[in-house]
């Protein structure tokens, strides 16, 4: 059974590219358009990793991480932030919220797959 990853981004093009990249690497990908949608998908899937943007409508990425960390199933699951934000302040906020890592856009597909392999422990 393929490992499932949740890709959360309000930009359809980014979701498309993340999905294309990860499916090419053999992962199953579930997409969500914002934090609220992501929480809903997280409840209904057994996710090995969550890859999320920060600036999104309804619920942002940091709030999503905090909400996921409260759920027993995702207490220790790897959560990577994929964002254009690169300031140390924002990274510190991500870390405090419970994120596992920080990737600044634009991402390189090969590097993205390598990082995911690493944190999933493949």
């Amino acid at each position, binding site marked *: 059974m393929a490992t499932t990853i949740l890709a959360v981004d309000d*930009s*359809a*093009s*980014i979701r*498309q*590219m993340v999905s*294309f*990249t990860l499916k090419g690497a053999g992962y199953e990908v579930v997409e969500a358009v914002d934090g609220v949608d992501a929480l809903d998908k997280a409840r209904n899937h057994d996710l090995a990793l969550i890859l999320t943007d920060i*600036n999104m409508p309804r619920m942002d990425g940091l709030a999503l991480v905090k909400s996921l960390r409260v759920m027993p199933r995702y207490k220790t699951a790897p959560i990577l932030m994929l964002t*254009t*934000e*690169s*300031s140390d302040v924002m*990274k510190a906020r*991500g*870390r405090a919220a419970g*994120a*596992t*890592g*920080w*990737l*600044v*856009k*634009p*991402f*390189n*597909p*090969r*590097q993205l797959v390598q*990082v995911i392999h*690493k*944190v999933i422990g493949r």
Partner: protein
Amino acid sequence: MLLLCAALAVMAAGGIQIRSIGFAGGLTAPMVSAIIGIALAGGLVASSLTISKFTRKTAMVVQDVETSQDNRLDTADCDETVFCNPLLDDYFAGIRDELTQVDRLAVDAVSELVASFKHISNLTRSQQDISLAIAAVAAPAEPIGQLLERQKMVAEQIEQELDAAVTALQFGDLIAQLLNHTMVRVDAIGTALRRIDLLDAGQNDGEHLCKPWQFHQGVTKAVMLANTASRARPVVERGMQTGAIELF
């Protein structure tokens, strides 16, 4: 005067309403994306020009009114292409800087896309040549092992080029965010100027204060309000190089 500024700000905002243009082709039709990218880059250049024209035009209007209505302001200190309010100059310089950044990102991404797709095209042709050679294996010109090795190398190169294309294609998202931010800034200054203009008229029985120092004060207040309303720039990338990765 303030209403005029606000109206011009709205006009400028209208000039950059291309943020909703995305690339619908995505990865299923990469060449379509490249074409849209080129069109988008052209649009952005036009938008930048619109904004800079707007700024110059507004500056000239401001100076005209000031010199004709009140000579207390030393207009000799004013550059022909800038406002006489440093805060306002910085504000619009910020907008110009963002649009220049957008322009650079778009041009950079489009160049990379074109180069990547050219490489992919060449590599595909090369693959076809190899396949033809394999098909003619009954009388091979070079040993089959070497052909397979070459094919493996070409496949690897195709993958690298596709990776580069996927990285570059993310420019659409960066541009959308930057334009959105610029729009918020332009809207904020317009709203702030309108609010101050209304207050100004209200305090003076419907008469607008036209004295330069009062106008200067009003504009300063407007820029401060607008800066409070808009959040920090969401995109800092100046080119389409891959972003940093950090594991906590």
